[in-house]
């Protein structure tokens, strides 16, 4: 093993050798917009929809912008490095599309005050950091309503990712809607502690079905559970994307995230010089949350009532959390007719009455 110096010489020579073929980067004055994704663009769920938003920016703003992305970036040091590299290489607007990118986004934004950052689903902002999210719980009210009608075993399986307010809120919202039409309904919840792991998601779906669930809901990113539902002949809902192709018979409807209008508007704002740090939390009404087409397997009257709920939420006449609602321990939360305020929703760390089990802590 005396050849270490030669290895060094070899590696150096190799690196220098490639240098000869290296050309210079061509500068241009298009607005460079970067996207950092937590999963692969081919997840057909969360990241896929963000990438659709990126493509919409390109389609809408054409040659005024140049977009780029890095996919499957772990939440942590790697994310911080990717964002720094993007900022250094001339990106002026960077969308960071996962909750776990919150601290890295804030850190990098502090170093690059001239670069604008848009962080999805977080709560920390700065002069050059906006946050945005969607009221996915509104969609869960609609699919919870359908699930409550469609279940025959009265057991609904729920694949949950992390015990954060966002996910707890989704469970509560879906449960309340299902319970409203089916008093015997019961939710079985499996926490998988990942956003994207098709293997774990599929295992969770299988376990839920074995425990008697005949409708599966998920708060994870891949269509794995949909595939299992199709295989085992139970119902499921598309999550983030429509997922129709993964469960043509199993899929009842879906909650589709549509980031395109927001991404186009924010990019346009940077082009116009009107971009300001702000917080956006949009739901069904402006179209950030879309309800996928209802399957023919849903009886016609249920399709009509689900559509009425969807339209009611959009019109502002209905709210997913309208009292009376008690907390899981039986203490009152919302009085008759009272509507939940956003702060409570954003920090929700309790189940509503009737949901069984504990939030992992």
């Amino acid at each position, binding site marked *: 093993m005396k050849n270490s110096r030669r290895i060094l010489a070899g590696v150096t020579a*190799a690196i220098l050798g490639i240098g000869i073929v290296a050309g210079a980067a061509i500068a241009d004055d298009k607005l460079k917009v970067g996207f950092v994704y937590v999963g692969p663009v081919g997840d057909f769920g969360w990241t896929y929809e963000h990438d659709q938003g990126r493509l919409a920016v390109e389609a809408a703003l054409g040659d005024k912008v140049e977009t780029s992305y890095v996919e499957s970036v772990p939440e942590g040091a790697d994310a911080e*490095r990717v964002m720094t590299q993007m900022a250094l290489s001339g990106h002026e607007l960077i969308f960071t599309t996962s909750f776990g990118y919150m601290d890295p986004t804030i850190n990098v934004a502090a170093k690059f005050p001239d670069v604008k950052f848009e962080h999805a689903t977080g709560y920390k902002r700065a002069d050059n950091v906006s946050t945005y999210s969607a009221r996915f719980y509104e969609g869960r009210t609609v699919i919870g309503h359908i699930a409550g009608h469609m279940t025959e075993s009265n057991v609904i399986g729920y694949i949950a990712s992390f015990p954060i307010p966002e996910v707890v809120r989704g469970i509560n919202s879906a449960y309340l809607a299902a319970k409203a039409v089916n008093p015997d309904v019961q939710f079985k919840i499996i926490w998988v502690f990942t956003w994207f792991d098709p293997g774990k998601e599929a295992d969770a779906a299988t376990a839920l079905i074995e425990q008697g669930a005949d409708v599966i809901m998920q708060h994870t990113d891949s269509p794995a559970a949909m595939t299992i539902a199709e295989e085992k002949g139970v119902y499921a809902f598309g999550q983030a994307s429509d997922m129709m192709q993964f469960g043509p018979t199993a899929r009842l409807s879906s909650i589709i995230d549509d980031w395109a209008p927001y991404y186009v508007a924010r990019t346009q704002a940077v082009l116009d010089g009107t971009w300001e740090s702000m917080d956006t939390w949009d739901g069904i009404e402006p179209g950030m949350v879309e309800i996928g087409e209802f399957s023919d397997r849903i009886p016609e009257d249920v399709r009509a009532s689900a559509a009425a709920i969807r339209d009611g939420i959009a019109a502002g006449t209905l709210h997913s959390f309208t009292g009376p609602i008690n907390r899981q321990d039986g203490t009152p939360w919302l009085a008759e007719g009272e509507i939940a305020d956003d702060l409570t929703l954003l920090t929700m760390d309790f189940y509503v009455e009737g949901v069984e089990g504990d939030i992992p802590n």
Partner: protein
Amino acid sequence: MLRLEPRPEPSRRMLALTPFAAVLLTMLAGGFLFASLGTNPLDAIRVFFWDPLFDSTVASYTRPQLLVKAAPLIIIALGLSFGFRAGIWNIGAEGQFIMGAIVGGSAGLAVYPAEGVWVFPMMVAAGALGGLLWAMIPAILKIRFNANEILVSLMLVYVAFNILAGLVTGRLRDPDGFNWPESRNFQAYPSAHNAELFAGTGVHVGVIVMAVLVLLCHLVLRNHIFGFHVRLAGQSRQAARFAGINPHVLTALCLGLSGAFAGLAGLFELAGPAGKLSTNFPLGYGFTAIIVAFLGRLHPIGILLAGLLMALTYIGGELAQFMLNVPAAAVQVFQGMLLFFLLAVDFLVNYRIRVRLRPPEDTGAAPGTETRGDTVNGPGPGKSGEEPA
């Protein structure tokens, strides 16, 4: 019929040219890959190998980041190299990395928010101890019951991960973190923060420790009796026994050392670049380090270079994604190609392929015709790449 035959005296010049040849082959095969995806192959190769080091806009940041990304890989691989030379196979460095972070991180959180210069050194010591103790489990089971250390150490990775998942949803969860399953951020705890030493580079104490350990390991392997024992045990168990080496002591030392190194790397990573414990904390450094150790031919300087090369492919891969819109999967294929060619070229330098025209018809093959492929010094079992958890 093909058979493999070890070369009695592998060419030294060829051995030195191996990495060069492998990189060239990767560029060639990778060029085809990128061309088939519609990317200019020359651009792709430039972004992978040149831009992280010399690009005018990003290189001032990516150069030091190479060291930051490589440091945990190199520290873990250095520790593993002793055992691998002696034929003691610690495959569970990932678990020891996690336990180092858990124990070291817990030590820091236990005294939160106390400030003092003693906090960080205490965490470092606790981190190394955590990794060491976790590695002593396979060591003791091997010494006492002759349990296979490959299996035990590997299985303990999953145990460590589940302990981590349990703690970040329970005892170690940040009380101000909206129930998000992760610990407090050490970057916001000045005395515990493994901060960058030079502004804008990200270079932290772990990088310095890595450099010191490379030198130290080099000296120990070359000059110290322990290094001699390790090398002797690797060449012949029998000879080692005659030389008075206690195999049990050697097992405990090698596993303990690799565990402590992995724990150290875990703590530096936690208190520095990663910031907090969460289920996203383990990125597979402990597994990738096995590849780094073998790529570096178990030699400290080789490991240093192999770690840097590995880091270069990660950082170059990120640049390739957003500069050229190459998908991450293609980047991983490219990284795989590099490893494949390094091993393949290495193999062909040490072995030659003989073509036998007539297959033997008699059953009693003459002695010396058996292949010795089973003694190939290739990588041990392990998983390549750093997949996000």
